[in-house]
């Protein structure tokens, strides 16, 4: 075990734990943000630099501070380490800079983006960024890229976090997509207009922290904060699929199906494309109840209430609607 001090709070964690995961054992607002790190994906992390922290003392044996800020998601703790995150002005300034960099080539098209409300970059920018940019040069844009019938690749929004590449690499056979080009010309691509077609490809949508990879069967159907997340499961025939999902309802319609995520937005278990794209009837699933949405999301900020219909409205409703309301009352969900 190693004892570290994180923003003045002492915590004991097993040897080999990263600084970020040590902070997650404390939880709350002091946990560094992470755009590229994703616990279930081996080798992820270290790229976005959003989680940089200051190590004020390396260890009890060698209490010298580390010369540069370190990526907390890939740096293991050492006994006696002292880490500054929210308590370091330098760290907070660097985060502002990282937000500014990331937003150079990520358009602020949240009003038309399907990821709005669930976007890690939106949260990161809200918590650490500034409302203006000093960037006035030309930005990069892409034509829409067709990578198959289920997933939309919108490269203009990509922040090159590599999560989808790791997902495809570790979860599927015959990976057909990766990073092409380098520098700010780098892009996620399928190399000569291939399509992504395998049973677990839909998971790249879940891991994308921004709206670069979205669900074609859900695009533009609804803002997420108007939908109702419900936990559900089914006996999936695919042994690699956990069959545990979140159904996103609008009224009685299931608009999309996603894997379940933890409080840091990371999937708990992977799901197959059959569960994700082909099972969109309530009858396909065993419902468990409302899904808990955390991370100060706009989704959880919404309070789902039964519609309050006043007498005049009821009086004006056609008989068929009244019958429908009696037979299928809207579910009462949320807080």
């Amino acid at each position, binding site marked *: 075990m190693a004892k570290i001090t994180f923003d003045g709070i002492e915590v004991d964690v097993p040897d080999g734990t990263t600084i970020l995961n040590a902070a997650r054992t404390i939880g709350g607002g002091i946990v560094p943000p992470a755009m590229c790190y994703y616990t279930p994906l081996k080798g992820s*992390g*270290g*790229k*976005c*630099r*959003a989680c*940089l922290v200051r190590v004020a003392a390396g260890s009890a044996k060698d209490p010298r501070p580390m010369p*540069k*800020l370190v*990526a907390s998601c*890939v*740096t*293991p703790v050492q006994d006696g380490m002292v880490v500054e995150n929210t308590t370091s002005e330098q760290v907070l300034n*660097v985060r502002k*800079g*990282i937000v*500014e*960099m*990331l937003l*150079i*080539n990520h358009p602020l098209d949240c009003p038309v983006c399907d990821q709005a409300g669930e976007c890690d970059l939106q949260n990161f920018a809200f918590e650490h960024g500034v409302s203006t940019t*000093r*960037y006035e*040069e*030309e930005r990069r844009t892409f034509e829409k890229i067709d990578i198959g019938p289920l997933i939309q690749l919108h490269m203009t929004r990509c*922040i*090159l976090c*590599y999560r989808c590449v790791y997902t495809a690499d570790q979860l599927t056979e015959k990976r057909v997509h*990766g*990073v092409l*080009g*380098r*520098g*700010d*010309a*780098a892009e996620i691509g399928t190399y000569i207009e291939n399509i992504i077609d395998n049973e677990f490809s839909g998971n790249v949508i879940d891991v994308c922290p921004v709206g670069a990879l979205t669900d074609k069967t859900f695009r533009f159907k609804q803002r997420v904060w108007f939908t109702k997340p419900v936990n559900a499961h089914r006996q999936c025939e695919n042994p690699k699929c956990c069959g545990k999902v979140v159904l996103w309802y609008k009224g009685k319609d299931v608009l999309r199906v996603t894997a379940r995520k933890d409080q840091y937005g990371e999937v708990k278990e992977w799901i197959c494309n059959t569960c994700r794209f082909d099972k969109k009837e309530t009858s396909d699933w065993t419902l468990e109840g409302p899904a808990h949405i955390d991370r100060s999301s706009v989704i959880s900020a919404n309070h789902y209430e039964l519609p309050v219909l006043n007498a005049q409205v009821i009086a004006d409703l056609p008989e068929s609607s009244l019958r429908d309301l009696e037979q299928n009352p809207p579910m009462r969900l949320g807080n």
Partner: protein
Amino acid sequence: MGRKLLTEHINVEGIDTFEVYRKHGGYRSVEKALKTMTPDEVVEEVKKSGLRGRGGAGFPTGMKWSFLAKPEGVPRYLVCNADESEPGTFKDRQLMSKLPHLLIEGMITSSYALGANTSYIYIRGELLYVLRILEKAIAEAYAAGFLGKNILGSGYDLDLYVHPGGGAYICGEETALLESLEGKRGNPRNKPPFPAVQGLYARPTVVNNVESIAAVPVIVNDGGDEYAKIGVGRSTGTKLISACGHLNKPGIYEIELGVPVEEFIYSDEYCGGIWKGRDLKAVVAGGSSVPILPKELILKTAAGEPRLMTYESLSDGGFVTGTMLGSGGFIAMDETTCIVRNTWNFSRFYHHESCGQCSPCREGTGWLEKILHRIEHGHGTERDIDVLASVAKQIEGNTICPLGEAAAWPVSAAIRHFRDEFEWHIRNPQEATRPGAVYPGKAVLV
């Protein structure tokens, strides 16, 4: 006349062949090490020599070797970093093409010291002609029994391979090099773990520059103590300097560390002064990534001491008034040089070569280049200089690998020492963008 330890026989005809190289004392260090020394003794000699990595970082080679993890039954590797591609640095390719057996001899002796039975020379892909020279030399060494099984009957086996790189500057960064050598995209790895613990194929690995490895035979033959007598302080031995720019005699010089910069630039033994009798304006002393210094600070330190060609003297004053020896890529600029254009040119390079893996470098290098392009082309604004300095600061120290610093330092230093030239460009766009325009004032040291 300074001593030449590496390049003494460089002009001997046929020195690139095994026969001639051997006749001139080649491969003595292999015989000495394998027959009379233990691997630890070789490491000890390198430690005693004080040899510092000649690739740019200047980390003590012997100390680096002693960090190598040696778990039982696990292979370890020596990799020679021959991916020389920094603008202004062109010494290794000369060494390899003229004296291929010197590098091979160094590889054998070093591999023996490290207990590596397979070693690699990762060479810049564009240097195909050098790769052919090395492959021919390696075949000769195999035929003579200096490579392969049971070398010289010592029981030590070594296989040596040359691997061409992917034509990317980033592949010169040691972990990106290892990724590339493994057949993957040349992206730098997060550290820790360091290569000495988990390097090539996740095995303990040492990555050394060509010149560092080429110095090992000299150290083993003459002894570390003898080598350490050359040079000044912690800068021991000789160093290859690739001098270019507005010099009367640009070229590659082997110097004893400690030569005054002024002597290096102006003496006939070395660069012979600035061409066309012009005045020196600035120098980039260690390859394009190190901070530029104006004439006043490259010839003398801020304290007025003569600046020497050593790691310590060149870095005297930190980055406020100093720079780095780096890889020894010495670029001299005369009074007609436009610092803004030069900085933009360096930025173009780093923007083009950024791997794009981490956000500050991917986005920041492009931002720097675009602002500099505007200023150089007469579209700069008053706030651009501060934005430039701030963006460079945002990149510096926040990236996975040192390419971020390499891109940021030239910009920060140019603004630090030549801010008034940037301001002149912005305030006099028509005059500044006229072909052949030269800033009329003197640089102001901030």
